[in-house]
């Protein structure tokens, strides 16, 4: 979490972004600003368009109207695949379902893109990969195949794979939703450390406590709009919006119930 309040350069900016899939309007005017070094969490009920926002930012989805700027690049006006590829080299993404390449070892998964796309020399790419694996605490899994790892381990490899491209921004799309509860902690710990080290990131998450702890800003989406964007303390405890209070309250209530049952 950034403590100083000197203005930092804006890395990501969305202005009035609209997107429909057929008749269904998924995004109805999204405004979002992310400064360099910030961690921004997007929370809100499912189906409110959270993941679609991330897909727009790295050009996997094309908005119909509105402006998206990522590190000086106008994403919404990209027309050719080559331009989108240039963008994606600079924006990493980690998916809910890990999506590691099953036929490659952990090391190959991480070095494939740097060596093939960025033309980084193999030795250098492997050194970086080993560093990253150490950071996600999987140094001993270098030559394992994804099928031999647990979900939590696969997800940490996926994070290392995204970081290997030295991206200016990493998008985390519900990265703990597919994990068994006992593996959520190990993945969140890795992300927490990265954010503390100054990684610019946008996270779509259902982990309220985690979002509150690591985010500089939290955006609350509902029905394709961002209805509030504020620092966690403000949004969680001082929001006047009854829907937000209800949503967060629901999670808090659920957490309290779980903790009560487990005797914590």
């Amino acid at each position, binding site marked *: 979490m950034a403590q100083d309040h000197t203005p930092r350069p804006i890395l990501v900016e969305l202005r009035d972004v609209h997107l429909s899939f057929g008749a269904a309007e998924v995004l109805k005017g999204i405004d979002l600003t992310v400064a360099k070094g910030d961690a921004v969490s997007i929370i809100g009920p499912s189906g409110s368009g959270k993941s679609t926002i991330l897909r727009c930012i790295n050009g996997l989805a094309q908005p119909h109207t509105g402006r998206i700027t990522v590190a000086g690049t106008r994403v919404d006006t990209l027309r050719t695949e080559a331009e989108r590829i240039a963008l994606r080299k600079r924006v990493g993404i980690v998916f809910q*379902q890990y999506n590691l390449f099953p*036929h490659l070892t952990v090391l190959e998964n991480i070095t494939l893109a740097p060596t093939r796309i960025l033309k980084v020399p193999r030795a250098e790419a492997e050194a970086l990969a080993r560093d990253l694996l150490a950071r996600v605490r999987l140094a001993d899994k270098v030559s394992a*195949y994804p*099928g031999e790892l647990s979900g939590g381990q696969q997800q940490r490899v996926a994070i290392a*794979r995204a970081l290997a491209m030295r991206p200016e921004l990493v998008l985390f799309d519900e990265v703990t939703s597919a994990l068994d509860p006992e593996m959520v902690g190990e993945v969140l710990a890795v992300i927490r450390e990265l954010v503390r080290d100054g990684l610019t990131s946008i996270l779509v998450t259902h982990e309220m406590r985690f979002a509150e702890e690591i985010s500089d800003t939290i955006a609350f989406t509902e029905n394709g709009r961002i209805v509030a964007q504020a620092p966690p303390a403000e949004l969680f405890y001082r929001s006047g919006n009854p829907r937000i209070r209800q949503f967060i309250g629901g999670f808090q209530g659920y957490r309290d119930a779980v903790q009560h049952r487990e005797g914590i």
Partner: protein
Amino acid sequence: MIDEALQRFIALAGRVGLHYDFLLSGSEVRQWAAGMGTTLLLVVLAIPLSLAAGIAFAAALTSGRPWLALPVRAYVELTRNTPTLVQLMFAFFALNMLLSRALGGAAHNPFTPFFWVVAVTGLHIAAFHAEALRGGIEAVPAPLVEAAQATGFSAFEILRFVTLPLALRTALPALMNNLVNLVKLTTIGSAIAVGEVTYASIMIWTQRDNVLELMIVILLFFGLINLTVSRIGHFVERRLAIPGYGV
């Protein structure tokens, strides 16, 4: 020593009514061995051609570009639904003739019957490879392709590093089956006087009337080639097996 073993084999076969005396005739043995050599050469050239063209066709079929996919689709359907022998006749008597004429006479035409057999059988089986690989490529889960896109891979790089390696594994049994068929297909070369093993055998049995004796050896010969091909296939399958990834 070898001669002695040969004599004993001929005597033994003679006792069950099979006449392998021709094995003592140097010229016929040389002709037959040359035929086997030609068959092996056809196989060794046509297999890589079929695989390379099959991969290219599969790439075209899954490219999402109609101008690329439609002509290949038409070729695949045409070649799968017409006899290879007719394709060979058409290629040799029609295409080759047109080529000769364009090049100013048959003497200037570098394309031999041998070339046409390799090309026609290899490209015929390529169509079957393409269908198997297309199935494998389309079976790769969409999120995995998206992950590759999100990393910044181009469509070609995704094919090269992600979908094709996975498709090769799922399609491997079908590809091996196609290769066994390819080995068998090379016999149609005899129709345009390519001296492969069938053709060489015809030359021998028209002199000797020993069809059954030659047949037995030819069938064993093809059985051996196909056994080798499938052994290599199993070896490749084991080498490509991914730990923890069930196919």
